[in-house]
């Protein structure tokens, strides 16, 4: 039954996965360095942990920090291949946004975050690139003023 007359196709994205080499180290990176909030941290049995974090101003988008280990989502060879690719910096998992890129850049640098590109004005916006503790890279952009 229709609840209202709005579109009833897909409406939102509420979970996204980032594959990490080590969940404990990723916890430190995403929570203590990036300032994300822990949403759910549940032990699911030996060696299995469901860990999600959210950007501070987007509490409804859970980022699942997925361990790349055999038995989780991967078999032995896929896990080894995936770990290799992630560590090599193959994957760019998204674009984060901040209010002031220069301040955020300086703060993250002070906290030891590795930037592969310092803030630069590009034709599509003001952007920097950084890597997480596993090797996944992200673009960091500044919110455009209206």
């Amino acid at each position, binding site marked *: 039954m229709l609840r209202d007359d709005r579109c009833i196709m897909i409406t939102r994205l509420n*979970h996204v996965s980032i594959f990490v080499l080590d969940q404990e180290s990723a916890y430190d990176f995403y929570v203590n360095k990036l300032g994300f909030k822990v949403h*759910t941290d*549940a*032990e*699911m*049995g*030996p060696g*299995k942990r*469901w860990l999600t974090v959210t950007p501070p101003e987007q509490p409804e988008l859970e980022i*699942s920090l997925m361990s790349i280990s055999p*038995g*989780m*989502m991967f078999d032995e060879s896929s896990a080894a291949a995936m770990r290799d690719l992630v560590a090599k910096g193959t994957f760019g998992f998204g674009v984060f946004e901040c*209010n*002031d890129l*220069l*301040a955020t850049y*300086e*703060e993250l640098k*002070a906290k030891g975050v590795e930037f592969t590109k*310092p*803030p630069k004005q590009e034709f599509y916006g003001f952007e920097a690139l950084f890597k997480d503790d596993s090797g996944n890279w992200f673009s960091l952009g500044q919110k455009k003023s209206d």
Partner: protein
Amino acid sequence: MDEYPKQYLYRQIVRAKLFIDTNYASPIELDNIADAACFSKFHFVRLFKHVYGTTPHQYLINIRIERAVELLEKGASVKEACFAVGFDSVTSFTGLFKRRICLSPAAFQRQRELRKKEIAAVPLKHIPNCFAEKKGWTKKSNFREIETVDRDADAAR
């Protein structure tokens, strides 16, 4: 060499912000932070607000409440959390907490406690089924296995 214009200013403001992040639990005087950052007080407050959208004082309060949230989640009493993050009155702490979190510290703690218990008891309720199934966390496989292992261990004793 500077990577961009005004890098010195940004570094000083960020340093002041990180100073608050580290020392929020001590009585922090705005004058001290402004001095440490080599700015006059008014210039400092203006720059800080420009970058972070809030005054250093409001920011300090926000950080204290955020840390109090973490302590309450870990089981600290309201009084313990209040003093541990640098407030010196439970009444003013409760008021500031309520204004930001929309719940009293005690009510917030009860709510988080309930959620924690539920996650421990029924973790799958908090995980989208597709993941749980794919990862073998659904009851049909993993949990039964663990239960079996536990039972075997008990039987061995």
